[in-house]
């Protein structure tokens, strides 16, 4: 008996030494609430991950590193590209070994889907900072989301552009989940408003050469193009092609969701994107005191202006939600109570007034119509020109 206990101790000590040697150890202090953040901090989406981090750090800088007397410790884990196996492994380790009480972040839908089955057993809520497919919310009752869905940002855009007098559209979306979501939502909204989508084009992923697509758009003879592409190099190629092939000069209007004109891409897009109209939930240039404070803190955290864009605000508001959860549970681990506490929570976010829908646990927010333009200092911004308050996710509406 004695021997076995000593043996067990030895094993434990051995494990600790090993884990420590691997740089993984970290026994929590008496009253520290750990929050695990999973995001793409390296690889092709590193910029988005950096924005997660900036949002989190901005929140901590403004509100201090403790909530209602409980110290908050953030544990970052890198998930460079969509990889559900790795996502599950990271989430499991964060829950079981690092003993985090909250999970946050998650950029891609399949990763979120891999994590949600763990939440109930782990007694951990997941606050999603980005992953934007409607279905995630129904996969577990312990998920709360502070970002947006593609349908949510596209639907008001569809209505607004028809109201602005454009009737005949072509949609050009990247051929993957979110792109297809955007196409369907836009078509539905445009047709409901009396417009017409004459052709739907789905473009292969990983393409940066778009002139044949532009040729198709020209052939279709539309007045307006709606585009959805993952942010980054494809966006730049698309917008440049739109200009180079003379479509813009020919008077065709380009509409998109805000992913295409995220602020970090605007300096590269520059003049080419001028006048582009997008629908989105957040512009870094949003005019409010809350936003100015947020931008100041987040730019400091991200290490320079020009890299800040929408994932940061999802992370910032995510931290707000997590803090409310910590306060409501008194620092104890109780996922259900925590989620219950933020249902219906309403506050002033840097993006404007927002609310967690008690039914869907998704964020209800204002969607803005924006135009790419120069501000008075000569920087390119997404200038808000119209707002659609109180937009819920149409994908989840019953």
């Amino acid at each position, binding site marked *: 008996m004695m021997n076995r206990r000593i043996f067990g101790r030895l*094993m434990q000590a*051995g*494990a600790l030494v*090993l*884990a420590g040697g*691997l*740089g*993984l150890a970290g026994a929590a202090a008496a009253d520290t609430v750990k929050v695990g953040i999973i995001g793409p*901090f*390296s*690889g092709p989406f*590193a910029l988005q*991950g*950096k924005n997660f*981090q900036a949002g989190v750090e901005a929140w901590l800088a403004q509100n201090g590193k403790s909530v209602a007397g409980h110290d908050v410790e953030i544990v*970052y*884990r*890198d998930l460079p*590209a*969509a*990889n*559900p*196996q*790795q996502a*599950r*492994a*990271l*989430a*499991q*380790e964060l*829950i*079981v*070994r690092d003993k985090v009480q909250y999970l946050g972040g998650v950029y891609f*839908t*399949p*990763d979120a*889907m*891999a994590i949600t*089955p*763990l939440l109930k*057993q*782990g007694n951990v809520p997941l606050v999603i900072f980005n992953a934007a*497919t409607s*279905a995630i919310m129904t*996969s577990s009752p312990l998920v709360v989301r502070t970002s947006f869905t593609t349908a949510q940002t596209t639907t008001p855009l569809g209505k607004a552009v028809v109201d602005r007098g454009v009737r005949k559209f072509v949609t050009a979306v990247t*051929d*993957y*989940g*979110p792109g*297809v979501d955007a196409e369907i939502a836009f078509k539905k909204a445009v047709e409901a408003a009396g417009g017409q989508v004459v052709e739907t084009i789905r473009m*292969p*992923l990983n393409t940066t050469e778009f002139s044949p697509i532009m040729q198709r758009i020209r052939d279709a003879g539309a007045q307006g193009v709606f585009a959805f592409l993952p942010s980054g190099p494809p966006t730049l190629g698309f917008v440049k092609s739109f200009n180079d092939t003379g479509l813009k000069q020919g008077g065709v209007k380009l509409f998109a969701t805000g992913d295409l004109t995220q602020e970090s891409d605007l300096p590269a897009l520059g003049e080419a994107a001028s006048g582009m109209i997008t629908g989105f939930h957040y512009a870094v240039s949003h005019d409010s005191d809350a936003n100015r404070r947020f931008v100041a803190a987040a730019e400091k955290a991200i290490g320079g202006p020009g890299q800040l864009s929408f994932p940061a605000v999802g992370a910032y508001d995510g931290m707000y939600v997590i803090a409310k959860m910590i306060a409501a549970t008194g620092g104890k681990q109780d996922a259900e109570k925590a989620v219950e506490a933020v249902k219906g929570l309403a506050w002033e976010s840097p993006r404007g007034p927002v609310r967690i829908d008690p039914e869907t646990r998704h964020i209800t927010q204002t969607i803005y119509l924006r135009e790419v333009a120069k501000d008075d200092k000569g920087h390119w911004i997404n200038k808000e020109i119209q707002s659609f308050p109180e937009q819920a996710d149409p994908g989840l509406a019953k």
Partner: protein
Amino acid sequence: MAQASAPMAAATPARDLGRDLAGLALILAAGLAGYWLFPDNLSFLTRLISVALLVLSLDLIVGYCGIASLGQAALYGAGAYAAGIACLNGVTEPFLLILIGAAAGAVTGLLMGTVMLRAHGLPQLVLSIAIVQLLHEAANKAAWLTGGSDGLAGMVPAPLFGLFEFDLWGRAAYLFGLGLLVAVFVALKLLVRSPFGMVCRGLKEDPLRVSALGISAFPVLLRMFVISGAVAGMGGALGAISTQVVGLDSVSFELSANALVMLVLGGLGNLYGALIGTVVFMAVEHVVAAIDPFHWMTLVGALLIAIVLFAPRGLSGTLDEAARILARRPRRAGP
């Protein structure tokens, strides 16, 4: 590689058996040690086993047949999706799912081998890339079947032996994976020692001489492709069962490239090399990425450069060398 395999082939069967048993014991011990020492990392360790199966399968065709492939994830992904789709359609028995994965991998291996064996060298490598990219594209397009880029989610495998659930702590998944790995490893050891395995190795070292013996290369290599597909498919199925989600990454070029890097890192043409490479690469990546999630890529890159410079025959080759020096045995010259 030639030097690595030659002394082994020349050794006596008795010594071989002893080495194999010792090696097997070592794998089991390492696996169980992982279970006791890192009870909180079992999900990661299960992923490691799943990838180890992929790398083993790659070793069969790269290390033993000399066929370069940067598309091995096609086979892995076929297994993963087949198991995932079967699971969603009511086949939830884990062993059965592994078999389904193996079958899907084998069929894909047959197709892939038929195409790839038409070329050699660099063009062959490019064929493998084209195939994995095509499958990736197909899996993306067939969203009604595979879930597309959102991933195939919602599968709930039945408990192992009707008792042990695939849950948060992942004990069942890990031990299941470890058992699978050991069984596959034993089978592959027997395979590469068999006359069939020798023919494959012969085809790699000197295709002309082997064909002079009246052996036609194509059916032999194709058979190895099918076996490799089955092993990779099992890896994919294990991944699907333990993660309960299958994503497009499981049929990606990136995964294929990573598998090749792990294999070369560990050492080719030697099943231990595949395991060592997988464990070292994934463990380093995991630990370094946890310490510095933002800049770990540079360090992993530096590691790869260092390996090429200082351990030219892969980690297993260097270990072999070290063992030889320790045992003060003169190294036998290769052919």
